[in-house]
């Protein structure tokens, strides 16, 4: 840990960095999409910036009898949630708020996504959007319990809910080595709570874009950016929980954190493009009948190891 001065600078720096990482993710996705369509990858990677400019200038459309208050709250919430999550993620030596229950905080914030996405769906007063909102809740009910145990497992191993202590506990051995199942479940859950990749059915094309159907202009920008930001915080948190945080040879801690975060984010984006969508109604059974028991076993194994090691 460094001094207070550094922390205050970090308050300003963190959102900027989050934005930058999210943008990098978006650029990568754009490049991959372009290549898939046979266009030059570079043009694709510039696409997000152009999209930002376009959406900033676009006029907001409003549907009839929309619940604007809830709609706006839902739209803004994703980005706010991502920022609030950033507060407990250590970036090398810096962390905004190293609260003793940082892990639970992260969890509470990703539950906020439930509300946010459903409000987006509800507020628009549109059938497609509402169906998207419901899809997300169904998906959320499936991934949340395995995610909770995936979060608990590193905490058990580090015997602390404070994220910095979890990072410190992996100096000798990264948690991903001996809790691979938890890591995978966590990664899948990150995709799920970002409504991304195979878990993007809430916004998928078969319901005309779902929660994105009616949003336009700045609102749409906020939601799209929020999803990338959530993905980025998820990647950063995976680094802190399982990949040793800033641990690495020679180079400074913040650098290693950045590199690992970007790498995880890239993997998220590349890999999840290769999967087709997962229907939430099918997911529930898989998550509860396979995911939850296997996750419980992982937690049990870790607990036993911790208990035996003393």
């Amino acid at each position, binding site marked *: 840990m460094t001094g207070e001065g550094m922390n205050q600078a970090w308050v300003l720096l963190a959102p900027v960095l989050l934005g930058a990482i999210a943008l990098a993710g978006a650029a990568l996705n754009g490049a991959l999409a372009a290549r898939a369509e046979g266009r030059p990858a570079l043009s694709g990677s510039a696409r997000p910036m152009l999209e930002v400019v376009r959406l900033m200038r676009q006029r907001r459309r409003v549907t009839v009898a929309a619940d604007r208050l809830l709609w706006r709250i839902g739209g803004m919430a994703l980005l706010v949630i991502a920022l609030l999550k950033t507060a407990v993620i250590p970036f090398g030596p810096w962390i905004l708020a190293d609260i003793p229950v940082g892990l639970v905080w992260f969890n509470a914030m990703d539950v906020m996504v439930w509300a946010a996405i459903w409000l987006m769906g*509800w507020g628009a007063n549109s059938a497609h959007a509402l169906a998207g909102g419901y899809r997300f809740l169904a998906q959320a009910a499936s991934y949340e319990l395995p995610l909770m145990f995936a979060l608990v497992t590193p905490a058990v191993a580090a015997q602390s809910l404070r994220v910095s202590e979890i990072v410190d506990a992996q100096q000798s051995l990264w948690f991903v080595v001996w809790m691979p199942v938890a890591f995978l479940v966590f990664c899948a859950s990150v995709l799920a709570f970002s409504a991304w990749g195979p878990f993007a059915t809430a916004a998928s094309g078969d319901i005309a874009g779902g929660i994105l159907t009616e949003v336009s202009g700045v609102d749409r920008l906020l939601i799209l950016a929020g999803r990338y930001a959530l993905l980025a915080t998820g990647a950063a948190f995976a680094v802190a929980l399982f990949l040793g945080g800033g641990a690495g040879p020679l180079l400074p801690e913040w650098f290693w954190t950045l590199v690992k975060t970007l790498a995880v984010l890239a993997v998220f984006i590349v890999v999840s493009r290769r999967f087709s969508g997962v229907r939430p109604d099918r997911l529930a059974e898989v998550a509860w009948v396979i995911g939850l028991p296997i996750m419980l076993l992982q937690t049990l194994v870790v607990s036993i190891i911790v208990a035996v090691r003393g």
Partner: protein
Amino acid sequence: MLSIIIFSALAIVAVVSGIAVFRVDSMARATYALAVSFVAVGVMLLMFDLDYIGVITILMMVMEMAIMAIYMIMFMGMNPALMPMSMVHNNRWSAILATGTFLLLAGGAVLVPWPARSGSVGTEDLTMALGEALMGSKMLVMLTVSPILFATIVAALVLANPRGRYDRWGDNLQRATPDDPQQGGLGK
């Protein structure tokens, strides 16, 4: 001083959104007003150094309200953003009783000579201490409470489940895959 200001602000948010639950016309708004009230109380708990409980309250209640909203809309089956709703009975007496109770409780809170604080907040990790109390000295309480809670959940499932296993697997449980209106991911 700052803490009083913050607390008062939170208190106003909590109570006003609590009142809003029964005043607003939209079911979604009512539900999420309740969620706001809970979040405010959760933050208040954080002010009492109850980190874990406070965050957990926020977590649980936001989740609960997200589900609650579904039920609200499922059962009431209309979009009250389009039509105002007033589904109350016994309004006057309810208000009188609630006010009376408030006067009683608030009077008690103000007039009772509360004892001084005994003991102090330890420097140790409260969450850890709570965990140790749960699994140690208060094990018996949890052993008693948890089966009851579990039984209640099972009872709730039984009540809510319209189709038993004979509906799904046939009269002699002979089907290889269950006959569900909506097939699950594993076909179980």
